[in-house]
């Protein structure tokens, strides 16, 4: 498995190498790659037309997307794909799934919990064919051009992502994927997948941010020596490296754990995003003034890190749930 993981990551890195951080135009082109390259089908079981590479395959790809700051709705899209591939068969499911895996944009909310008729934090809703409305009692797919469905752009600080609010009237025509307890399970599957993808995106980003920082410290000279020679800076960098390594080990462990619960994925996401945030915060400080300039990529990483941290439930949310589960003896 780990060989396939490396191969996938290498292929993705190669394909994305033109979309280096900071190069806005190239990154927009990169947004089309996941569909074209078949990356969106990596985690889908083979009997559903996917590559059957599970969460390992997903992590390998999502890390590269995070590393190259690739724009687009991949995190939401893999959630929709997970829901479609795990839903009981319904009329037209296979065609929808195939289209979604091929890159037709189908999106969903990355908000922590559903709110009324307004579905919030929906990536790329303006160019989506469908919006998946995830609720614990009902999971339904709504066509973007269904009567009454409207999208409102909510510009974010993170310019590598585009978020929308979507108004979905209660009576909008919808394909119901699941209801009742089945909906709860499907909702959890989709959320787990998205949380996991966000964690992988965060760690790919964190690795890139740290590598850029170390490179910068080696090149920049002050006091007649490279900054990288100062131990005060070395030790901060070493702590970041340590935090990334441990979070990454946890990522792969959860990737291989078929029994990982929604809470386990939420806790992983909270942890990984905490590390990403810490790394990017330090990245700017260790770059000095240049880190505050828009031409330099530091800010892109920082903004993506902070958005990742806020999506699908922040650290406080998941940590509190973990703490409660420990108290109640329900934590794995």
């Amino acid at each position: 498995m780990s060989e396939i993981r490396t191969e996938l990551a290498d292929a993705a890195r190669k394909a994305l190498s033109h979309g280096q951080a900071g190069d806005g135009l190239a990154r927009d082109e990169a947004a089309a790659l996941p569909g074209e390259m078949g990356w969106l089908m990596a985690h889908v079981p083979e009997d559903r037309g996917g590559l059957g590479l599970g969460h390992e395959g997903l992590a390998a790809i999502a890390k590269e997307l995070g590393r190259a700051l690739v724009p687009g709705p991949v995190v939401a899209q893999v959630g929709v794909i997970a829901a479609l591939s795990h839903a009981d068969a319904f009329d037209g499911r296979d065609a929808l799934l195939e289209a979604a895996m091929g890159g037709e944009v189908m999106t969903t909310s990355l908000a922590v919990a559903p709110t009324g008729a307004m579905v919030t934090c929906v990536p790329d809703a303006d160019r989506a064919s469908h919006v998946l409305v995830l609720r614990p009692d009902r999971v339904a797919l709504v066509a973007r051009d269904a009567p009454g469905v409207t999208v409102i752009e909510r510009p974010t600080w993170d310019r590598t992502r585009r978020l929308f609010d979507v108004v979905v009237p209660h009576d909008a025509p919808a394909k119901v994927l699941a209801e009742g307890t089945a909906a709860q399970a499907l909702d959890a599957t989709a959320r787990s997948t998205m949380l996991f993808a966000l964690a992988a995106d965060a760690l790919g980003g964190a690795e890139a941010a740290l590598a850029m920082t170390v490179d910068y410290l080696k090149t920049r000279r002050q006091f007649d020596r490279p900054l990288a020679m100062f131990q005060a800076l070395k030790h901060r960098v070493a702590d970041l490296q340590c935090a990334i390594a441990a979070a990454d080990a946890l990522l792969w462990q959860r990737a291989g754990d078929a029994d990982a619960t929604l809470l386990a994925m939420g806790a992983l996401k909270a942890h990984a995003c905490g590390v990403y945030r810490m790394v990017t915060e330090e990245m700017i400080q260790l770059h000095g003034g240049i880190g505050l300039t828009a031409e330099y990529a530091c800010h892109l990483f920082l903004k993506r890190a902070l958005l990742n941290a806020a999506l699908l439930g922040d650290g406080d949310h998941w940590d509190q749930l973990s703490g409660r589960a420990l108290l109640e003896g329900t934590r794995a």
Partner: protein
Amino acid sequence: MPEPYDHLDTLRQTLRAWLAANAPADWRETCTSHDGFLALQRKWFTTLIEGGWAIPHWPAQGPHGAWPGGGRGLAEQKVIYEELARADTPRLILTFVSTYHAACTLFEWATPEQQAKYLPGILAGEIWCQGFSEPGAGSDLASLRTRAELRGDHYVVNGQKLWSTMGQFADKCLLLVRTSSEGAKQAGLTYLLLDMKAKGVTARPIHQIHGDEEFAELFLDDVHVPVADRLGAEGQGWAVAQSTLSSERGLTLLELSARMRGSLWRLVELVGGDEPGVLRDLGRLATRIDAAQALADQFLAKRIAGEEAVGDASLVKLMYARTLREFTSMGLRLGGIGQQYHEPIVFGGGMETGNWMADFMNSYAWTIAGGSDEVQRNIIAERMLEMPREPKSWVGA
């Protein structure tokens, strides 16, 4: 090659059943004195040897037959440690240096005669200590000054060693000494096996801040060590010492992270109400422990596959040490004023006993010993991330 899953599963079930019948139950009550501690550690070591679980990391065969329970693959060792931790058995602290540091160094460097002389004693429960550090040589170990002079068929050793874990109970000592002051400081070191009962050896226990006396100061006054008890050649001590230093890495931390995770209930027990801030910090810590454990696990898997890279061990140790500090701090915080009333420690109770002031102070063992956090950070930055070293020499005022 990783062992097939069903084989590991059988091993796990076998050991679990053995532990159900043999694991000591009331050791936390009996280990409130040094005598109780020594008695329990000796008995548990013997029981484990008889069961074939004490030395899974030894080779299968010795010069005179099979070692009892040796020759286990790393994946098997991992299962054994996980189960020992799960059953809350006492860690083998008294014989840790013997079965790890001493044995692994002997396997690599000792002549057949030396192996035959020393290894059976280790199995019989002989206690070894490590005499490397000195008052003037801590992180900068190679600057050590204890002198050994060759006189005919023996060395005469003079000097002082510090922080020798279990030194006051030890029968033997792994001793690093200086035989030459010429050239690079590492090149003048020699490795000796010292009999602690030799004339001129004095071990004085050091009273630690949490009430234990886990290590000792050794005074060496014209001590005679036969040349036959030298490991490696004269001047090769630094290379031999590297075997000693790397012998405990990996597996120990796997065991210790498993034990930390298994001890989370001690914190949970202290949470009174429903305070979101407390729940969050507890939850965050629990995930951090999962990450520390995953890292130790991954490290071992890499070792099994022969893919260990420079600095990997430092990452594992630094992560474990910092997480243990957080764990024990959380205990202190949740325990409140109650933890400020003195409570005697359980000797050999491990890193998390629920006596939080003691546990907190004891957590420094991991941030200082075996290469401090700062030294690990230097290794990560300079060797792994290839950041330039500082200029070597300094001419002080």
